[in-house]
């Protein structure tokens, strides 16, 4: 369920590091807890984000939730497909529905994140 090569936050975001770029998204658990996602607010390319600070937001039918940046750095690309198809987040949260790519400026921050087994345990506790 939760890919081994991702790192996770306690707020249910994931990041997959490829070189000096982190691909960021929300987890399967997050989309399931939110329900039908109908709106995604993405950051602008060029925005500098900080680990643990808001990156954007997603809205389900029921409520709005902040997305927190799992890593600090500069947003170099966002997934524009989500603007027209926010429901992708329900269908493929760990793949096609990535949210943004961030050029990492402090890779050591990755040590603050959970690995797949730790995240799995967190989810088991919360559900």
């Amino acid at each position, binding site marked *: 369920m939760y890919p081994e090569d991702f790192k996770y936050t306690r707020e249910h975001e994931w990041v997959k590091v490829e070189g000096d770029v982190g691909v960021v998204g929300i987890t399967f658990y997050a989309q399931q807890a939110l*329900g*039908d996602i*109908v*709106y995604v607010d993405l950051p602008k390319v060029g925005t500098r984000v900080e680990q643990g600070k808001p990156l954007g*937001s997603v*809205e*389900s*039918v*029921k*409520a*709005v939730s902040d997305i927190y940046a799992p890593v600090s750095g500069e947003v170099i690309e966002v997934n524009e497909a989500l603007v027209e198809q926010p429901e992708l987040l329900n269908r493929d949260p760990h793949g096609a529905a990535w949210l943004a790519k961030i050029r990492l400026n402090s890779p050591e921050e990755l040590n603050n994140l959970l690995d797949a087994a730790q995240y799995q345990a967190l989810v088991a506790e919360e559900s």
Partner: protein
Amino acid sequence: MVEFGGWEMPVQYSGIIEEHLAVRRAVGLFDVSHMGEIEIRGPEALALVEYVTTNQASRLNAGQAQYSAMLYEHGGFVDDLLVHKVADDHYFLCVNASNQEKDYRHILRYNRFRAEVEFASDRYVQLALQGPRAEQTLRRLTATDLTAIRYYHFTDGEVCGVPARIARTGYTGEDGFELYVAPEHGVRVFRELLRAGEEFGIRPCGLGARNTLRLEAKMALYGHEIDASIRPPEADLNWIVKMDKGEFVGRAALERLAAAGVRRKLVGFEMLDRAIARDGYPVYVEGRAVGWVTSGGPAPFLNKNIGLCYLPVEFAEIGRTIQIGVRGRLAEAQTVRTPFYKRAKTNP
């Protein structure tokens, strides 16, 4: 599951959008057993009901229901409710879950008629079967003639062989039934209804879809459109207030309000910008915060983002552009006619 007024309730089963569309297009089933029931009996039952509610219960025939409200002396809402006339000396009230104890105390307080007032919530579960296929679904489980039950009427019949109060009422804007049965039969009736509706694509529905459905139909939710600080003319609910029926709790305050003039009004809006208004967001006109959103969100059937808000009457006309404060920015919306959704009229 979420806690709601002391009840563990599912927000959704298969998904709010899927459940919402099932009710609009076919049929959905809600367990709304959290709703409260209060029974009023005796020769003075009508006198008490007339005194504590705003609509005219004396106009009801046995087997008829009406939407009504209970007010404080100051004219604000204690609750909104359905009043069912079972017999000349017996009225059955369905009230909101989170208000039921307060409602019961309120009724007792004004019971100078010495009618018998029973807090009956523990004796009923309530299942709401809603949607254009509701009648066909229920028909399979009852010998009661459903076609004889018109909209806002009810009958004491049976479902799955057990006694049931079958009311053609609902909170979704669709045709449908609200069934009151004894708790020990609740689970079985719920399961049987799901089975009976299978071929129509029935979905069990949670609180989430209940909220989006009632919002599209512009039905009030206590704690949002109405509460102790809101009075019926402000909430666009003058139609359930019968000022000429005689004395009732809150009447004097409403007379004073009518003389002084209503200052704010509940208005529907649609988002023009790509943004979703949520409950409590501020509403701006010409840069000034002048009101607040009472309910807002996506309307799954209409495929728009809609909401209800209070606005000063001078800004409440249809077609006005307003701004909603959505998480630190202003998003454009336009006031529109309500209800947002109205089903095509059919037989019942």
